[in-house]
Structures are given as C-alpha cells and as structure tokens.
C-alpha cells in the first residue's frame, strides 16, 4: 500500500503543473517583491540597494501601527461573524425538513456574486450621514445616530462588518459542501443515541469539519490582514489614513508617492504576518487532527 501511494511518477505528474504555474506566475514575482523591498526603487529606474532603510522607516511610521491595529480588528470581526453565521445557516439548510431551503441557499450567497463596488455603494447609502440607518434611529427617537464611516476609531468596525456580511456566503457554501460529505449514518447513529438535532451537529458536524474550519479560519483571518478594496471605496482610507491597512500603505506609497521600495516593504511585512497566522492555525489544528483520527478509528471498530 505504501508503495502504491508513493508512486513517484504519479506524484511528479500530479504536483508539477500546479507548481510550474505557481512558481512562474506567483512565486518569482513574490521573490522580487522581497528583493525590491530593500531598495529605493520607484517602479521605473534602476533600484539602489538601501538595506533595511525601508523597514526602519516603516517601523517608525505612525500609519504602520494604525494599519496593523485595523487589520487585527478587521480579521477578528470578519472571522467571528462569518464562521458563526455560516455554520448556523449551513446546518439549517442542510436539514431536509427545512422549508424553502433551496431558495435560502441561493439567497445567502447572493452578496458574494455582486461586485464589491455595488455592495459598498449600497452600504455607503445606508451608513452615510443622512443615510437609512441614521434616519431609522432618528425616527425611533434615539440619539444613536453616528458618523458611521467617518469616525477615526470606529469606522474600521463598520467596514469590517460590511466585508463580513458580503463574504459570509463563501464560508457558508464551503461548510454546506463539507456537511454534504459527512456520511448520513453518523447522524442516524446519533439520533438513535437520543441526541437532539443541535446536539448532533455540535457533536458530529463541527468536529468532523475541522479541516473545513481550518481553511475557513485561514481565509477570513488572512483576508482581514489583506483587506483593501472596501476601505478604498467606502472611506478612501480616511479620515487621515485612520482606516489604512498594510495593503493600502503599499498602494499609497507605490502609486501616489512613487516610492515602490517602501510600499513593497509594507507588503512583505504583510505576507510574513499572513504566513505566521497560517502556521499558527496549522499548529493548533494538528493536535486536534490526531485526536480526530483516533476517534474515527475507534468509531469504526465499534461499528
């Protein structure tokens, strides 16, 4: 069996196409990004090596800290929101007794299909100073009206919510597909044991979908760290760069200030942050994986 699954030629054939495309069109450019981050390149002229200067400048830049703080908030908000709602809705529509489940399944995914511009435009109409939300609050006579998108400290939460709301459907679809691949007899067994539906899901679905959750986590956390488009459309990074992220810093430095090297230093730091997050998640889930394997084999023996 080991030999069967260790077929060298097959492995080579399977791995090669993906690796070739990745290395040529993604990895080589990434290496250049790192290399140029140590230079004063402006995108056009010959770069001069400047050592760690860009990085030292970056670490003393006020915006660098705002950006990191924003990314952290963004990542946490979208992860919690998306994983919670995606799980709840996925379990709901996987229940064959739920009426209109096919319709719901399409509905939850709709925001993902729409272009970011449309979604942001809608939300900025809702959230603007005289927007729908503030009018609702005024009509209700509460003084909760806010400058939702223009607040130096709070705007980032609002933008994170918009992003979380739009992309929740992604995680939802992934979890639905995951549930689909769980053998139905697991649930039957649970029912015989007298578990309620919710309990059955807590005990079976979520542990069995550990791998699915792992990549959902990676997607939303790194998505938060990489965030750019929503800020660009909703606030333009403002007021005064208080909704910047590292990608925004990169964009601003490279294209507005023609300081490519500096921008790429910001991008490099971001890539390293993302990699760390991925490694940490992999590490955490490795323990659980082993446990799961054990449980699986035990279950199998019992059956």
């Amino acid at each position: 069996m080991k030999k069967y699954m260790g077929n060298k030629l097959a492995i080579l054939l399977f791995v090669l196409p993906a690796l070739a495309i990745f290395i040529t069109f993604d990895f080589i450019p990434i290496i250049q990004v790192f290399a140029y981050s140590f230079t004063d390149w402006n995108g056009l002229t010959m770069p001069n090596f400047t050592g760690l200067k860009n990085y030292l400048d970056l670490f003393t830049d006020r915006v660098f800290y705002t950006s990191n703080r924003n990314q952290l908030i963004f990542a946490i908000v979208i992860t919690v929101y998306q994983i919670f709602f995606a799980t709840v809705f996925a379990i709901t529509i996987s229940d064959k007794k739920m009426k209109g489940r096919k319709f719901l399944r399409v509905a939850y995914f709709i925001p993902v299909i729409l272009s970011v511009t449309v979604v942001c435009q809608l939300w900025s109409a809702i959230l603007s100073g005289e927007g729908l939300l503030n009018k609702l609050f005024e009509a209700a006579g509460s003084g909760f009206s806010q400058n939702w998108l223009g607040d130096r400290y709070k705007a980032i939460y609002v933008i994170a919510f918009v992003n979380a709301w739009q992309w929740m459907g992604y995680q939802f679809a992934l979890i639905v597909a995951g549930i689909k691949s769980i053998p139905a007899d697991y649930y039957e067994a649970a029912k015989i044991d007298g578990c309620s539906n919710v309990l059955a899901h807590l005990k079976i679905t979520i542990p069995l979908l550990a791998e699915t959750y792992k990549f959902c986590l990676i997607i939303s956390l790194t998505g938060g760290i990489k965030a750019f488009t929503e800020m660009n459309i909703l606030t333009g990074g403002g007021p005064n760069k208080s909704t910047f992220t590292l990608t925004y810093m990169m964009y601003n430095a490279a294209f507005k200030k023609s300081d490519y090297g500096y921008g790429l230093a910001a991008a490099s730091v971001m890539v390293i942050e993302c990699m760390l997050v991925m490694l940490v998640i992999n590490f955490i889930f490795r323990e659980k994986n082993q446990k799961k394997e054990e449980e699986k084999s035990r279950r199998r023996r019992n059956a």
Partner: protein
Amino acid sequence: MRKEGKKSALHYIFVVFCWIYAAFSLYPLIWMLFYSFKTNQEIFVTNPFGFPWPLHYENYITAWTKYDVPLYFLNSLLVSIGTVAITIVCALLFSYATSRMVWKMKTFTRLFLGLGMFIPVQAIMIPVVKVVQKFNLMGTRWSLVFPYVAINLAFACMVYYGFFKGIPIELEEAACMDGATIYQTFFRIIEPLVRPATVTLVIYIFLNAWNEFILANVVVGSIPALKTLPLGVLFFQGEFTTDWGGMGATMVIASFPAILVYSIFSEQVENAMTIGGAVKG
C-alpha cells in the same frame, strides 16, 4: 422528545430570523436593479432606496453603446472558463498528491504553495506582467488566464486538501486490492467524492476571474479585441464625476452570468454523491 414543545417555539423564531437574513441578502440585488434606472441626483439625494420612477432605461442604452458589450462579454467568458478549467485540474492533482500520497517534503510543498494566498495583486503586478511578456503571451488571452490561475491556485489547493483529508483510506486500499492503477483510483473513485468541493470552487474561481479588474486593465487594457467586462466601468468614471446609473446598468449586465453560474452549480452540490454513499456502495 421531552423538549419538543419548547423547541418548536425557539425553532419558529429561528426560522423567521433565517428568512429575514435572506431578505437582507437579496436586497442588494433589487437595489442594484433599481439603481441602474436612476440618475445621479436620484441615487444620492432624492430617491436612494425607493422604486425608480421615471425609469431611466437610457442608462442601459448608454452602457450598451459606450463599448462593445458582446465582445467584452465573450472575452470575460473565455478567460473565466479557461481559468476555472486549468485551476481545477491543477489544484485537484496537486492536493491529492500532497494530502493522500506518501512522500517526503509534501507538507513543505503544500505550505509553499499556500504562500500564494497572501500577496496582494497590486504588489506583484509589475513582475507578473514582465513574466507574461517573457513567455510572449502578450496579446493573447493566456496573458490573463495564467496569472489568474496562479492567483487562485493556493486557495483551491487549500480547500481540496481539507476535503481529501476527510476521505477514509479504505477506499484506496480496496482499489489497490482490485488492481486499479493509482490514476484509475484517483479519477474513478476519489475525484467524484470531492465534487461538492469542486463545484464550490468552480463558482469561486469563476467569480474571481469574472470580476477581476486591476490586472486586466494593465494587461489587455490597450487591446480592444481582448478587453474584459469589468473594464467597461472605466467609461463611466471620470476624474471628478461618475455616471453611477450607467455603471449600475453595466454591473447588472455583468452580474447575470455570475448568478446563472451559481444557480446551476449550486444545484450540483446538492446532487453530488456523498462519501457515505461511496463507502457503503
């Protein structure tokens, strides 16, 4: 059984919540449709949320006449289909090898490719275009397809990895006993089991490629015969002012195929064979 009465009350509230959330998710679609029939003044001041009246259908005429919609549409379609096909094949094979087959370095290789998920397109744009030029792909649709594949690969591989991990090893053991080659095992037995993932990924990658703007603008922005649909919005965005209604119309036109793709493929998730079924059978 004993909780039955209590549960149904809670259940009822929950179902209502699900439907409200769904309405909330569908609303932007309707909003976009309304929006595409409005003028800037209606959008920003007089009527941001209501039904558009009078209908400014001329937005659609502008959208249709400003650029060659059918051609851009065809280009987008070809590029998106090409991207989806190549990405799916590469990712399927790669993830199978890194998740189930036995060899050294497989974890490293997997994480190495995962690197691709983290880099923003803006940062690698110049080097990517240079690579495309080196391979003499400029002026062909491959100039978009390959970079798109590279960008989507990491994500697709990660999703597949998760799904492959959940398949019991007995399947391959049995196939091996029956004398199937590794290729037969993969294509006949394993691949059908991850169909739900494949279908989900088809939708994602298609949407990514369909909506991509930044790279498309740089690579094919100067070649009229190859321009893709997202580039159409450029005709509405001035330095100072934007024709939001016309842009809305463009986006409505661009959204239809995406919705269609989702409706068709999400049905496939439902019909896909389950691992449970395969093990039993």
